[in-house]
């Protein structure tokens, strides 16, 4: 018999399939959008990825996703104070975009509109069979923001987008078409108060010669499941910095997919994962150096407490044409508990012959010599440990150079340490 037996769906998969049936009539878009949604739910029906799928090896989603809450339109989410005071804020509150805000040089359109008129259809769909987050989000996405930033725009304050959940399910998109010669910082907040299932997908196109920093600050409650996917294409001579901080969530997977599209482009990834309790956090990056003369640096710093489990997978593909690629990746973990764990999988796939690529990974405990030195100056053990742990991650944050951002992020860091350190 050559007929494939359909798999027996898990309760979570069944809940998603049922939710799709119930939700369908309320989702914006028809025609091409609806075809994309149908195709996406078929991918879920075929089964969520297991550890047998290479890219999900450390996060067996089929086993780990046990809770799929129902949509609840009655729940109300409130915006949070922006990371930088005075930033213009575009909100998505429990899945629905708030009011637009006027920002010079930026056109902001709710994604629901773009789904409704069908223009967003090409952006939907999974990127390959293992793209469960893309599939889940494409099936259910209801709203979000599309930012179009005009050529030459210089944003004085960061623009902040917020995805705030109050429970149930939330599926959001933030997209940005950033023109040429733009200088901009975008802050993305992922937070909320409920036991939600959240998916949030970003598609960001960066124009030639632009300098863009994008920060994802994820601070979901311990009860939430959070799936993020960040896709970016970097133009010629553009410099793009992505900063990702994970400081919450029960089950978290943040994917990062970046392509250097233009020669002379540069990608910087800085990641901070603060893991506590009985949680699972996975950051998975795939970076394609697709043209000659591009550079990248990835530095991930993890602090693991309690029974937390963390994963970093970093894959750098250097295409055959991508000569003179200069790529370096480092993942450093501070393991503060015997019950915590962190898995790192760096991969370099290099098809060009004139490149400089490297990677390194370390797992350490607090350095006792450092601790002794601080204590020998009268600093009590708890404070000294706190200083050293903070220093370990602050090094990465301080590279951001923008003092206001550094201060704001360090304040988030202090908050986390006060609660979990």
């Amino acid at each position, binding site marked *: 018999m050559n007929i494939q037996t359909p798999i027996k769906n898990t309760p979570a998969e069944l809940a998603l399939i049922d939710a799709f049936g119930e939700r369908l009539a309320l989702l914006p878009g028809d025609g091409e959008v609806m075809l994309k949604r149908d195709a996406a739910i078929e991918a879920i029906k075929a089964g969520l990825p297991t550890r047998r799928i290479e890219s999900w090896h450390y996060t067996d989603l089929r086993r780990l996703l046990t809770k799929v809450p129902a949509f609840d339109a009655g729940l109300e989410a409130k915006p949070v104070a922006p990371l930088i005071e005075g930033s213009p804020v575009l909100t998505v509150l429990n899945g629905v975009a708030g009011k637009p805000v006027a920002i010079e040089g930026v056109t902001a359109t709710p994604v629901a509109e773009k789904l409704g008129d069908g223009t967003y259809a090409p952006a939907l769909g999974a990127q390959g069979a293992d793209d469960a987050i893309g599939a889940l989000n494409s099936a259910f996405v209801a709203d979000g923001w599309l930012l179009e930033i005009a050529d030459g725009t210089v944003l004085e304050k960061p623009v902040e987008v917020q995805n705030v959940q109050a429970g149930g399910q939330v599926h959001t998109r933030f997209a940005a078409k950033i023109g040429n010669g733009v200088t901009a910082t975008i802050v993305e907040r992922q937070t909320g108060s409920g036991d939600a299932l959240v998916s949030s997908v970003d598609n960001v196109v960066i124009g030639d010669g632009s300098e863009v920093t994008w920060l994802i600050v994820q601070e979901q409650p311990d009860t939430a499941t959070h799936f993020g996917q960040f896709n970016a294409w970097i133009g010629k001579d553009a410099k793009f910095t992505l900063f990702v901080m994970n400081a919450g969530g029960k089950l978290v997977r943040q994917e990062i997919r970046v392509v250097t599209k233009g020669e002379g482009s540069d990608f910087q990834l800085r990641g901070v994962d603060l893991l506590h309790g009985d949680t699972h956090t996975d950051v998975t990056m795939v970076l394609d150096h697709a043209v000659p003369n591009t550079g990248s640096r990835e530095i991930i710093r993890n602090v693991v407490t309690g029974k937390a489990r963390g994963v970093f997978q970093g894959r750098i593909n250097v295409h055959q044409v991508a000569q003179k690629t200069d790529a370096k990746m480092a993942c450093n973990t501070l393991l503060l508990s015997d019950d915590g764990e962190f898995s790192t999988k760096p991969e370099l796939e290099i098809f060009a012959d004139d490149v400089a690529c490297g990677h390194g990974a370390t797992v350490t405990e607090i350095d*006792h*010599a*450092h601790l*002794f*030195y*601080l*204590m*020998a*100056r*009268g*600093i*009590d*053990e708890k*404070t*000294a440990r706190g*200083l*050293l742990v*903070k*220093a*370990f*991650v*602050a*090094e990465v944050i*301080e590279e951001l150079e923008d003092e206001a951002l550094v201060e704001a992020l360090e304040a988030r860091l202090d908050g986390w340490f006060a609660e979990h350190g």
Partner: protein
Amino acid sequence: MLEIKNLHARIADEGTEIIRGLNLTVAKGEVAAIMGPNGSGKSTLSYILAGREDYEVTEGDILFNGESILEMDPAERAASGIFLAFQYPMEIPGVATMEFLKVAMNAQRKARGEEPLKVPELLKKVKDAAGTLQMDMGMLKRPLNVGFSGGEKKRAEILQMKLLEPKLCVMDETDSGLDIDALKIVSDGVNALRSPDRAIVVITHYQRLLEHIVPDSVHVLYKGQIIKSGDKSLALDLEANGYAGVIGEAA
């Protein structure tokens, strides 16, 4: 002020005994030099005084102002007034020097029941102290000791010592890695701290430092014991004749 009585100590991990029945008394206001060949236990003694966990005291006692410090952790010892100037100060990336000084000074003030220093007061104190050591304030914006030269690290140690105003200063090979100009600056910094209320223990391999910091007493440490004590002339004698004679006498 400091009384070390029949002290025996070993490396906690593997049990090698390093200090083997050491006796030493240093009075208030005294500057005591401890000299000895390599491997005699000089640095170990300084670490034990500061409370480093890697060493285990198996016998004897260390009294500071009449009270045993053996049960105190390094932070408590520091708060009670003991300061160790490290031979190799730690580089600690990510901890800004200024922030470190603030936390350390205020931790000790808190332990003594004093109000924390406000930022302007703190800055002034640090600036004044740094000035006397010819240190650039720009250095203090960098992470603690990171990228400092050997001499800069030693100056930073003396700066901390000045700011924390300890009762007992233990200086472990402070002269190592210093050129003659830096040695002068560091020695002046130490001499400025000499006071009737404060004892200073200078651990050194060479007599050179003692030309600048003139000791009241000199003690020779060999195989974990003080084998000879004398005044500053003992240091000159060691310089001229080496340790062999003294070791021979003791044996």
